[in-house]
Every structure is written in structure tokens, then in C-alpha cells.
């Protein structure tokens, strides 16, 4: 049993719904109690889709348990097929229906439907959303692009590829497909099938016609791509083109698989390299950034942060346990402890301990950062309705790097603004109390020492200690330090004072600590 306030991933049947909702002509009949229909609003409300997801729930009730819930499933399945006339039907159970063991696969088979039925076994008490999506996509690919009788031969390079992995509710997947399709086509390579988003089962049957697969999102398509490699001899490009460097590596890999000469197009189409070098970006140097999200986005973010923006990565983690190995090596490269957990309270503690100046995370970290008054940008699911923006905002490819530059840097104080605030901190309009211009409309005027304040009000934080008291004069001096670094200055000084065994903190100690930590 696990205590959780918020969860990063939904149950596996929600993953299956994401695949069903991504595709055309696929319907999902889900044995589930009333209440599980909440999942519909992930699509209709959070993603603002204009149609209901193609899911029929059996909505069994307590009084049905004594009688025949299996009959309810059969009726719902038969009626759904009659009403929606799908090309294929997925059948499965949610967590409660799993307990009553009705076997939807067997029941659907007994109905003798005239369309393909794909039974899903998604163990709700062990697995989670991304696993469910991955498994469902794999099952569909296996069914509709069946393995040939003969052993697959390795493909010769060719100028045709599939793009695998984008789904409904994916973080900017809708725009990433457009960007990557354009990028691939600009190399003279044709895109055969994009799946699951926008594909139907006839498209899946065409998958083997491509020379290779591009795995945009391994959390969803990794397993299916491995199967295609084993059974159809299709190699995969598994580099995720997020960031300038990764996009270039991606292009080189795609070119190789297509039998083209390696492309050399450094930074073409991306403003990020110049913006990073521009003089106004010097204030980005060494900004401490904490990163948490799904493995794909978190690992990419770490690379961009460190190598393309000049930040210092002070924390890196993921909730995707399946990709713990990849994340560990990325963390090692950044010289930080990897954080692999699905407990958002643990992430909160890690953020408090790391004292970042920017958080790149999911909707959960956005909340933590808001409470700590640390700037934040969302880089990964789970997300909020506002992370499905109306504008075109991919994360991948060159346009993705432009979007990333803007969306990560804007929450930070701009270069001159930061300096002016330090210089004119006593100005009546331009002072501590005045929030940075970009935060003003959203941030309430509140107490300005977030990190410390939080650390003392969260009993779960391991970093809480009893600090030596501050001398009045030292306290006044501390207030002269700009508010956005004051919390850090206070904590560093207190840490220093503890280490030195000081009984009271003086002005001297404040500057000693500053010198100590500025090594």
C-alpha cells in the first residue's frame, strides 16, 4: 500500500484509452464500474477534444456483483460494436473488474463478432499508464502487422520510414509529429505511417513497408519497435530529437538508415544557439535547474539545460522506472544523484534540498515550485489543460528548440532586470515587494523567502534543523540581498553557522558564508 496525494501516471487502462483515442476505427470496451468514466474528461476537458474517446464502459454496480456481471459485459460489447461499427475492438478490465475476474477477452470471443477482437491483460495493481499504452500499441502492431512466416531479414536502407509513439494526451505530441514529419521529408525521406496518433488498423498493416522506424517516444513505442525489428527486420532510430545537439544526431542517424550521406546542418532552423550566445543570456550561466518528468523529456531536458543553455543541473529524476538505467547514466553525466520515484512528496523534498533557481517538471513540480516561489516550466506529462496550447509549440526538431528556449527562459528574471533589482532595491516602485514583470499577473504579493519558509513548514522535509538565531543587524543585512537569492543566502548562512557551531549569526558570518559557498 502506498500513500499518495497526486500520481504521475494513471492506471494502465488509461494508457490503453490513450491508444484507442489516438487511432481511427478502434473501440475499447472496458469492464469497469461507474466512476471510471471520469477518464473521458482527460480527453474532452484537458486535451479539449471535440469528441468522446471511443470507449464503452460496462458501468457495473454493487447489486450486479451477485448476479451476472459477465452478461453485462457481453451486452455492452455487442451493443458498442453495433452502434459504433469499429474496425477492431479492444476489450479489457479496469482495476475493480480485474478483481471480479470476468475475463473480457474470453467473453468477447464468445460473442463471435465479425471484427478483430484484441484482448488486453493490463494488471492494474502492478503496472501504470505508460506501460498500458505501450502494451496496447504492441498488441495492435502484432495483430495487424503479423510476423511473416519466414525469419525476418535485415532491411536494406531506404528512403521510407515510420514514426512511432505519439499519442493522444501526449506532451506536445500533436505538434511534434508535424515538426518531425517536416524534418524527415526535408531530407528526402518519405513517411510511410505515423502511429498510433492518426493511424487506423489498415495503416498498421502497412508498417512493414518502411525501411526503418523512428521511435519518437520510447515509453509508448519502444516495445512495438523492438518487435518490428525482430520480426520484420526493421531497425529503429531511438534518438529523441529534443534539443539542438540531439536533433543533429537524430538527423545523422536517420540519414544513415535511409542510405543518405550524413547531413551536416548545424543549428539550421534553430535560434537557440545564437540566443544562448547572445549577451543577454549571460545571466543564464550556472542557474541551478531541477529536472523531473518522464524519462524521455527529463533526459533531453538535462542535456539542453547543461549544454545548450549553460545551466547547472542540480537535480534530475523520472517517474518512468522502466527507463531508470538511461536516467541514471544521464544523471551521472550531470554529476547529480538520480531520483527515480513515483512519490511526488519525495520529489518535493529533493527540490527543497537542491535549492534550484528553476524547476523543469510536470504539473506536480509546477505546484511545488509555485509554493516555493521558484520559477518553473512544464516539460512533461502529467499536465494541465493549459499545457495543450492553441499555438503550434512542438518540443522536437529545430522549432522545438526555439519553443524550449522561450518557455524555459521566460519564467526566469531577465538579465538587466535581475541587476537593476539588486541596484535599486529601495526604489518605491521597483523593490522587493514588486514581483518580476513576467510574474506580476499571476503571483500574489506574498512573503519573499520561499525556500526557508517552506522548509520549516513541511515536517516531512529532512532538511529541517534548528538554526542558530540571527543577530538583528545580520537580519537587516540579509534583507539587502535581492529576494530571489535571499532564501538561498539565508539557508547557506545557516548551514555554515551550524557547521561552524555558531550560536548567533552576525553580519560577518553572513559574508563568511557567502565567501565559503562562492568557491
Amino acid at each position: 500500500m502506498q500513500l499518495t496525494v497526486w500520481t504521475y501516471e494513471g492506471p494502465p487502462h488509461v494508457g490503453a484509452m490513450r491508444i484507442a483515442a489516438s487511432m481511427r476505427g478502434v473501440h475499447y470496451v472496458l469492464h469497469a464500474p461507474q466512476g471510471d468514466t471520469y477518464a473521458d474528461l482527460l480527453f474532452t476537458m484537458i486535451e479539449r477534444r471535440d469528441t468522446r474517446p471511443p470507449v464503452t464502459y460496462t458501468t457495473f454496480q454493487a447489486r450486479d456483483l451477485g448476479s451476472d456481471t459477465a452478461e453485462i459485459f457481453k451486452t455492452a460489447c455487442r451493443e458498442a460494436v453495433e452502434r459504433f461499427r469499429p474496425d477492431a475492438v479492444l476489450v479489457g478490465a479496469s482495476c475493480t473488474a480485474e478483481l471480479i475476474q470476468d475475463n473480457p477477452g474470453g467473453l468477447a470471443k464468445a460473442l463471435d463478432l465479425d471484427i478483430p477482437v484484441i484482448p488486453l491483460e493490463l494488471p492494474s495493481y502492478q503496472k501504470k499508464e505508460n506501460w498500458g499504452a505501450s502494451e496496447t500499441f504492441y498488441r495492435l502492431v502484432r495483430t495487424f502487422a503479423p510476423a511473416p512466416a519466414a525469419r525476418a531479414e535485415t532491411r536494406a536502407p531506404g528512403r521510407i520510414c515510420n514514426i512511432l509513439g505519439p499519442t493522444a494526451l501526449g506532451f506536445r505530441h500533436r505538434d511534434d509529429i508535424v515538426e518531425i514529419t517536416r524534418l524527415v521529408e526535408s531530407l528526402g525521406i518519405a513517411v510511410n505511417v505515423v502511429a498510433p496518433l492518426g493511424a487506423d488498423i489498415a495503416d498498421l498493416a502497412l508498417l512493414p513497408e518502411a525501411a526503418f522506424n523512428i521511435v519518437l517516444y520510447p515509453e509508448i513505442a519502444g516495445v512495438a519497435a523492438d518487435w518490428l525489428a525482430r520480426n520484420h527486420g526493421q531497425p529503429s532510430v531511438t534518438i529523441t530529437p529534443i534539443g539542438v545537439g540531439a536533433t543533429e544526431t537524430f538527423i545523422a542517424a536517420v540519414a544513415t538508415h535511409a542510405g543518405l550521406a550524413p547531413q551536416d546542418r548545424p543549428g539550421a532552423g534553430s535560434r537557440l544557439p545564437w540566443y544562448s550566445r547572445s549577451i543577454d543570456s549571460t545571466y543564464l550561466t550556472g542557474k541551478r535547474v531541477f529536472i523531473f518528468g518522464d524519462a524521455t523529456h527529463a533526459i533531453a531536458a538535462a542535456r539542453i539545460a547543461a549544454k545548450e543553455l549553460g545551466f547547472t543541473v542540480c537535480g534530475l529524476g523520472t517517474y518512468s522506472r522502466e527507463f531508470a538505467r538511461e536516467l541514471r547514466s544521464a544523471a551521472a553525466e550531470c554529476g547529480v544523484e538520480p531520483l527515480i520515484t513515483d512519490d511526488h512528496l519525495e520529489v518535493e523534498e529533493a527540490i527543497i534540498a537542491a535549492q534550484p533557481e528553476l524547476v523543469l517538471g510536470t504539473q506536480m513540480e509546477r505546484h511545488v515550485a509555485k509554493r516555493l516561489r521558484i520559477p518553473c516550466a512544464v516539460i512533461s506529462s502529467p499536465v494541465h489543460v493549459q499545457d495543450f496550447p492553441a499555438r503550434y509549440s512542438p518540443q522536437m526538431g529545430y522549432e522545438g528548440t526555439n519553443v524550449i528556449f522561450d518557455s524555459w527562459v521566460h519564467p526566469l528574471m531577465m538579465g538587466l532586470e535581475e541587476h537593476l533589482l539588486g541596484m535599486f532595491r529601495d526604489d518605491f516602485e521597483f523593490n522587493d515587494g514588486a514581483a518580476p514583470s513576467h510574474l506580476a499577473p499571476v503571483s500574489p504579493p506574498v512573503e519573499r523567502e520561499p525556500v526557508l519558509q517552506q522548509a520549516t513548514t513541511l515536517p516531512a522535509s529532512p532538511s529541517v534543523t534548528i538554526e542558530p538565531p540571527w543577530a538583528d543587524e545580520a537580519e537587516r543585512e540579509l534583507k539587502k540581498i535581492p529576494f530571489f537569492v535571499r532564501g538561498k543566502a539565508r539557508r547557506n548562512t545557516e548551514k555554515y553557522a551550524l557547521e561552524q557551531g555558531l550560536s548567533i549569526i552576525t553580519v560577518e558570518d553572513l559574508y563568511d558564508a557567502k565567501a565559503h559557498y562562492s568557491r
Partner: protein
Amino acid sequence: MNAPVSLPPLGSAAKPLRERGQHEVFCGLTSIMWLHRKMQDAFFLVVGSRTCAHLMQSAAGVMIFAEPRFATAIIDERDLAGLADIHEELDKVVDKLLARRPEIRLLVLVGSCPSEVIKLDLAKAADRLGGIHGPAVRFLHYSGSGIETTFTQGEDNFLAALVHELPSEPAGAAKSLIVAGALADVVEDQFRRIFDALGIGPVTFLPPRNSAALPHIGPQTRLLLAQPFLGEATKAMERRGARHLAAPFPLGEEGTTAWLLAAATEFGVDPERFAAITGPGRTRARMAVEKHRSVLDGKRIFFFPDSQLEPSMARFLYREAGCEILEIGTPFLHRHHVADEFALLPPDVFVSEGQDVDRQLDRCRAARPDLVVCGMGLANPLEAEGMATKWSIELVFTPVQGYEQAGDLAELFVRPFARREKLRVRV
């Protein structure tokens, strides 16, 4: 002898169309969304699956509050396989929670579909935990499971559980009034002022804002329901001796007056005094609704089931705003509690109980209503089909009861029309 019995038409209040297909309705767990804010020292711990945790955050619009006063104890494979003692595991979770949130005074264990199906005994767990952590922390339990409850029925079950904790009336107690059903604080305060002015008292509200402020209950207690979905809680209070005062619900000028009158009559308030005290509020409510009447008059409204508030909303729209009611869908019809509402509606108004969402959508499309009141899963798809919709959840989360809110209530239904009027973009 053989004269045909005149049966009410299919779909009326007396004989609603009963359906048991797919329900596009939240389960009872979601009532925690307002209960955890209403009772400020309570914490709700759902004992359930990852789905329950995901539901809670998705239904809350993904995180309204940075840290809400609810959480989920997620049952996992080890608990089900018997590798771990599920009760020990629950105790550990509770220890962890209380260490993190030492200010909790009332910890409510909320049963879910999986915990009900595996027959996890939360009554036993609450007793045991009370023995360990009491008296500083009190433990309650109820089921908000989707196999037994819809949306607002979670509040009903919570209040029913709370009733067992209510102290008995002292001997020789005077007549008192309990107003049951979570209301916004501002509405509660307005009603309290009116009751005071009428000389009705003592009046207490259930749930109270603080778990220590539980009202007395006994044979001298009169019960006024502020919400139509309190079947179980009412039964529990009647078993403790309280007497229910039948009335329409306090929506709109007419409903609020009738609701107050039920209490005034019981407490022997002089009719002239009643008229004098309620007069200004009635006038204000009528004026406020009147402003919106030109938009709503003659509009044809279709209700999908959501909160059990549907008959009361329909009555308000029909009587005070001049709307035509095409269908009242409700997840559950408590005949006795809504009898006074139906007395004010046309006898042949079409009522459906439960749901088969696809069939109901067929009826809705065929009826071409001017406004569809429905849950969040349906609203955008229906808008995309060209229908004007109103999220039913707003009717639960917005203060709409009482005289001062009558205009706000009308405005909620006006807004979809006003919006369409303003928008000059085509889909």
C-alpha cells in the same frame, strides 16, 4: 371493474424511465472535492487503487490546491496476494500521514470500488486506528465507491457516518433545527441570519466547519435538507429521533421561501413576521432572476444525470425563468425528498433515472434542446455538435442556494447563451 387503469406516461416522476447502461457520472469519491474544504480539520483518505488517485486529481482539474486534505492509500499487488497484511499496511500509511499532517483531527477512511469488492473492513480499521491515535484523532469511515454511489451520494454517506458521532440531546432539550447538506459558508451565514431574525433556533449545520462542533440530535431535533441527495443521512438522523421537515429545496425565490416556511411553520413563527423577514430577500431574488428572464424564457432544457439536483434546478427554471423542460435525467430519484419539487412541475415532465449514455444522447439529439446540462465528459463533444451546454458540476460548486444567489443561479444558465451571442468565430 375492467376500466383501464390510468397509468402515468413512461418517463414521469411517478414512473421514470430507468436505465442501467454506461453512466457518464462521477463516483461518490469526488464529493471529497468540496467536503475536504468544508470541514477544515478533516482529512479524507481514500483506500483504493491508482485509478481512484488518478480520478481525484483529474476530477479536481488536476490540482486546484498544492496540497489538498485528501490522499489515496493505493492498494497494490502485495496487498491483494496476501503477501502483506492489508490492515498493517493501512496502519503504516495512516502513521505516515499523521506524521506529515499533525493538525488532522478527523481522519475519514473512504471505501472505494476495489476495497468494497475485496471486502476490506474499514469499520474495523477505523475502530483499531481510533484505539491507537484517539482521542486526539477521531476516525470515521464510509463508502464512496462507484459500485454503490454516484457523485453527491458520497456526501450523503459521509454525513450518515457523521450522524453516528453526533451527541444525543440532553434531557429536556428544547426544539432545535439541523440544516443538513454542505453549503458554501456565505450561504450558511445568510440562512443563519434569517433563522435568527425569525426566532428559529438553536440552528446547526451538518457538516459543521469544524469536526469538534457536532450538533446534538434527538426527538426534539427537526431536520431541514439543504440538498436533495441525503437519503442515507436522513434515515440515520430519523433513527436518532430527528424529524424531517418536507420542503422543496432552497433554489430560487419560490424554493427558498417554501423551504424557510417549512421551518417557520414547525417552529410556530407568526406568518406576518415571516412575511416581513423574508420580504426583502424575496423581492431581491425576484428582481435578480427577472434580469435574466428575457434570455431564458421559452428555452428548452435537457438535463443529463449528475448530482440529483436536477429536479430542483428544473423546477426553478420552469417556474421562475419560463423554461421548458425536455428531460430531467438524475442518477437516483429519491421520490419522497423531491415530491415537493415535482408538485411544482408539469405532471408529464419526462424523467429518467440512472443512465444509458448513448441512448440518452440519441434522445437529446432528437429533441434539439436549446441548452444541455451535462457533465464534463460530454460538454465539449456536444458543443462540437452545435449544442449549447452548461457544466452541471458548476451547479454543485457554485453557491446557488438562497435568495441572494437566485440571480447567480439564473445567470449560470444564461451564460452559455450570452457566450454564443458574443462569439463571432465559427468552428
